[in-house]
């Protein structure tokens, strides 16, 4: 099958949905780029180039914005209630700080507060994650905060295939969706069908099957879990890797099903550990699979610190395959395991 990058997969999803549905609009800072400037139009296509080319293909439907996230993220919510399907870009998720009200008090609440009368079909595309030495205000993995809010859906693709399918699903979905793009994954290539398709929300992907330990991993952590599993297989430990793909809705059933079989759980989450996806999934499993557990669930996360700048420190901050393998080993054969 054709191979394209994670970035191209998102771009293609946007283009195909814009082609299919004239109510889909795309906006954000420098999403075209060069607005009002003497040089080239569509000069950037977004700070990383994800929206490049859409400006010329869809005249009037790709808009640059001033640096006013409260206004344009809120405008996405308003536009969604009044006939459009906006895809707004919050360049780095860290910038949620300047516009969160429009997301969690406005967009997220309409449906429930208005007694089921509202539909808010908006997507917020946003970058997350450490790894590019961008320090404390450009490297956080803040998806647990959004997952916490009823009314928001949260998608976190780990591969080009999922990126395209989840994006198309997100655009067609009638609820506000926060779409998390790990900036380190943009250049990753994978097989992606040319035709349009969706990946349903709330359906975990069984990335690898195994009987000894369940590893639930999210976003960039999925490939790290695969590397760990490969290493452990050499020692006869078979890992089952689940990628939830969306954290809200969360495919709890698949997780429980896997843990019932393996009796052991490791959750890998790039965010900080307290009130994280890792702590959430570990708690759900402890509550729902207690009888099946042969060891206490383990979490592999970033530490409880902001992301550091120095490459040495940042490399130690992000969970890596070695830490995942060590955690898996411990639940299988270490002190954490019950006899």
């Amino acid at each position, binding site marked *: 099958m054709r191979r394209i990058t994670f970035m191209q997969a998102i771009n293609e999803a946007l283009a195909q949905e814009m082609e299919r549905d004239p109510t889909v609009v795309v906006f954000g*800072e*420098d999403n075209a*780029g*060069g*607005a*009002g*400037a*003497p*040089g*080239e139009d569509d*000069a*950037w296509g977004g*700070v990383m180039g994800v929206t490049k080319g859409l400006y010329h293909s869809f005249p009037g439907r790709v808009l*640059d914005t*001033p*640096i*006013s*996230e*409260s*206004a344009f993220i809120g405008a996405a919510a308003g536009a969604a209630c009044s006939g459009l399907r906006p895809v707004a870009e919050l360049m780095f998720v*860290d*910038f949620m*700080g*300047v516009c969160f009200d429009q997301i969690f008090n406005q967009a997220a609440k309409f449906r429930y507060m208005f007694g089921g009368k509202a539909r808010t079909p908006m997507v917020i595309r946003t970058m997350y994650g450490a790894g*590019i*030495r*961008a*320090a*404390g*205000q*450009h490297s956080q993995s803040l998806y647990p905060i959004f997952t916490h809010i009823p009314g928001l859906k949260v998608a976190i693709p780990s591969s080009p295939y999922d990126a395209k399918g989840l994006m198309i699903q997100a655009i067609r979905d009638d609820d506000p969706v926060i779409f998390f793009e790990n900036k380190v994954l943009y250049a990753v290539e994978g097989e992606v069908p040319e035709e349009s398709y969706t990946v349903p929300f709330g359906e975990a992907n069984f990335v690898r099957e195994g009987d000894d330990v369940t590893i639930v991993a999210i976003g960039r952590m999925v490939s790290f879990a695969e590397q760990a599993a490969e290493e452990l297989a050499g020692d006869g430990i078979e890992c089952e890797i689940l990628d939830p793909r969306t954290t809200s809705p969360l495919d709890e059933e698949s997780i429980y099903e896997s843990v019932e079989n393996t009796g052991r759980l490791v959750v890998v989450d790039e965010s900080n550990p307290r009130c994280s996806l890792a702590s959430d999934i570990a708690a759900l499993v402890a509550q729902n699979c207690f009888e099946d557990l042969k060891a206490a669930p383990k979490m592999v996360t970033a*530490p*409880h*610190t*902001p992301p*550091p*700048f*120095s*490459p*040495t*420190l940042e490399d*130690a*901050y992000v969970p890596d395959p070695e830490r995942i393998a060590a955690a898996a080993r411990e639940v299988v054969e270490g002190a954490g395991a019950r006899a």
Partner: protein
Amino acid sequence: MTTVDTARLREPSKEELLESYRVMRTIREFEDRLHVEFATGEIPGFVHLYAGEEAIAAGVCAHLNEDDYIASTHRGHGHCIAKGCDVKAMMKEIYGKKDGLCHGKGGSMHIADLDKGMLGANGIVGGGPPLVCGVGLSAKVRGTKQVGVAFTGDGGSNQGTFLESLNLAAVWNLPCVFVVENNGYAESTSTNFSTRGIDIAKRADGFGMPGVVVDGHDFFAVYEAAGEAIRRAREGGGPSLIECKVNRYYGHFEGDAQTYRAPNEVENIRRERDCLDMFARRVTDAGLIERSELEQIDEEVRALIDEAVEEAKAAPEPGQADLLSDVYVSY
């Protein structure tokens, strides 16, 4: 909008002029060198260079005492240098080293030194102005004569936090100065697009404070306007807004191909409106300073930056324990 009341301003002394020139030259040399070093791949992360805009940081900070505060932006190296941050420690920070000004935890976008009244470069556009309102409040409540200055870009001036801060500072009559560095672009987006062609200084009218536009290439224009605004703030006269029209010599960040700019745009500005050239011409034509005195500073600065880079490259990395330290004062 008001005009600057020059009658009340003192001319800078020769020593002060030499010092301001040294600040501008240090910033230029620092940034030009980073431009070269970044291309080698040795510098991690995002680097936003201030070259071309030196007259603003130097002209404003010339009026500030060590215990006055400034809040900076992502394009912060110039503000740091002008406010007295240690250049070698800054360089180490940019290289992510343990002895960097923030122990390698912040990098270019977060250089800070509270002992020097430098509240930090900022990765969040519009992050600084509210902090400066707080500085103003603190000075007012404690009855000091300190002043707070917020630097913001043209792009940042469209952020709610900036506009809310103008209003808050006016309402509380705070000793604050808001300096907008209008370099024509926010990333690749032109100011013509994002502010509908009006002077950003005009926004001051809407909040009931004085606002002026000055040529940000001209040290003396900035010096005068900032002197007036800072004096007013110190004397209890409340906040002001200064818009400095200026140009950015390099890309938004290092690695920006800048296809949105006109051909020769930067070359022309460098030739005609370079702040260091304009300064040198003015002070030598007026017979205030000899060319050789400036050249001596140039040489000293070049040596300083050479050493700073060399030492930064050789400096030790942070250790693993540094990852977990300094999250809280106590916990």
